[in-house]
């Protein structure tokens, strides 16, 4: 088992005719992901990396039986791409695109309420279940099959953290994205990992800004049956500055690293202060 994606996931790539879309369609296919086609409105009938291109998600679903999509279109088109997936009742849409306006995401997620589709991202590296499927942009070599579930707000820091768990391997690694409003949060992933028999331990990688980590800690305390390690990036970040990610900002004195670490400690989460502590601390809890 794993969470979110596996061998049965049938993926389409929105924006497959663009540079990034084509590159990652190929990389995902090479990894073994069941990529079944792509979508670029107006370019239906073409083919990219041997994959058929369709004009709409609806058509792609009809012809390929796709149940997931990954989005590589510019931010100004990304919301429409997400709406299209939700309207077509896909199980999962992963939005890699960065720079989606926050209010647009609010509306997309409001539209998704009560519908079938789970949104992951935006501004995220995607998800990988090592050895099964990669619906994302992460370098495959940093991951191997195993029992650790990783959930993170970051991109490259996720690769760093995952590579520190290589002794145990990973069941699934999820990048939830660095924006203030995102489709899938820590608690969503924690509860899926908690229910996944293959996952034996969870590493949660948070950062400054918002209170998602604090709420995740409360959930862990109340409901999680598996050991959890927590890491927070941004202890040295100055307040009021957006640290690259739109959501990584200490505002009005809240969203600081010490608050989050305190919440982790109170919930029995093993706090990790530097990536290379992850291996030994995991070993101690497994």
């Amino acid at each position, binding site marked *: 088992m794993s969470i979110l994606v596996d061998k049965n996931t049938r993926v389409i790539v929105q924006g497959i005719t663009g540079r990034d879309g084509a590159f990652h369609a190929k990389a995902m296919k090479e990894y073994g992901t069941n990529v079944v086609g792509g979508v670029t409105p107006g370019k239906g009938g073409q083919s990219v990396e041997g994959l058929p291109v369709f004009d709409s998600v609806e058509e792609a679903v009809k012809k390929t039986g796709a149940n997931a999509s990954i989005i590589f279109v510019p931010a100004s088109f990304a919301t429409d791409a997400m709406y299209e997936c939700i309207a077509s009742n896909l199980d999962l849409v992963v939005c890699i695109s960065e720079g989606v306006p926050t209010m647009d995401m609010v509306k997309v997620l409001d539209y998704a309420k009560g519908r079938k589709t789970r949104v992951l991202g935006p501004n995220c590296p995607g998800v990988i279940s090592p050895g099964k499927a990669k619906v994302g942009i992460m370098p495959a070599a940093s991951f191997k099959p195993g029992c650790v579930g990783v959930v993170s707000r970051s991109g490259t820091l996720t690769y760093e953290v995952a590579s520190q768990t290589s002794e145990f391997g990973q069941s699934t690694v999820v990048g939830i994205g660095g924006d203030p409003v995102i489709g899938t949060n820590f608690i969503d992933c924690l509860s899926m990992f908690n229910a996944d028999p293959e996952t034996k331990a969870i590493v949660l990688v948070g950062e400054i800004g918002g209170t998602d980590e604090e709420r995740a800690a409360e959930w862990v305390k109340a409901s999680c049956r598996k050991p959890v390690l927590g*890491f927070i990036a941004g202890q040295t970040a100055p307040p009021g500055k957006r640290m690259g990610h*739109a959501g990584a900002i200490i505002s009005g004195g809240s969203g600081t690293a010490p608050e989050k670490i305190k919440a982790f400690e109170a919930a029995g989460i093993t706090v990790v202060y530097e990536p290379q502590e992850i291996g030994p601390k995991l070993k101690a809890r497994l």
Partner: protein
Amino acid sequence: MKIHEYQAKEIFAAFGIPVPRERVAANPVEAGMLARELGMPVVIKAQVLVGGRGKAGGVKKVDSADQVETVAGSIIGMDIKGLRVNKVLVSECVDVKGEAYVGIIIDRATRAPVLMASAAGGVEIEEVAKATPEKILKTVIDPAAGLLGFQARNIGMALYGDAKLAREFAGIAQKLYRIFVQKDCSLIEINPLVKLGSGSLLALDAKINFDDNADFRHKEWEEMRDLSAVEPTEVEAKAAGLTYIKLSGNVGCVVNGAGLAMATMDLIKRYGGEPANFLDVGGSSSPEKMVTAMRIILSDPNVKAILINIFGGITRCDDIANGLLQAQKQADIRVPLVARLTGTNAEKAREILKGSAVTPAETMGDAVKKAVALAGGAK
């Protein structure tokens, strides 16, 4: 992106939110002329993109027309929390009978906009939120339906206990929400929203932050941006596709990805050093980007060593290595460099850097230790 009070008030006025009679002035003479047009007394308010200007002496009431130029002259050029005041707002004095707070933000937890209000206006809302959270009234706005009249009236009623004022408040709050959506704000505030002697409401101050992610559909923001409030190097970095934030330490860092960049800064501090900056080179990193990144970091005289920490995914380590060599040729690199390059094409990068003056490192911890030592050691 933050905008000035006078710019926010122009938007308020365009949407029909009542504001005082006032105009902005860039020099004392202009301020004097405006004051005479408005009639005395007036209030002179520093236009600066940081809170707490009142306490810093940036807001003054002036009774006589002869005093306006002197007072305006003392405020223009003033330094408030590191920012220079370049303009003042000359505003009519109004008869204040009560002060409230009203604002809209997006609540990350409920993933929806929230209207917040408090009868304790005038002070920093964060302080109210911390000390007496029960004094803040909140209502979650349905993104599809918008801020509904009854929701806003209920908040107004709780604030004023008066049906007429509640209706007036609701009108202002709904206009505020219209601005929030149409102008892609990340924050909009009236603090204080004052009750006048005449019994009506007026926005005495205004604060708007725009959502930077929406800049592709707001070309007008470029003209509104006050570049004097931003570090010039941060502007240069942005133009090159880099995110750079200057800090006060002596270990410069170049990292790919915001999370890894923060984690690298944290580790520098943990090993006894101080980071000189946050720098994210972004996803695709051409050698040219590296040259710009090195130049920007070296423009800070405090920097004593530079740490390059790259986990290659989309970013290719060989591009970074070539960029480093190019930077060494083009710029005078006066400090030692430590590079930890792993992931995509890391082997190629190692070959490229062989024999160069760049100190290689295997792990993030190893790289940080070396960089801190080269910058003069732990404190």
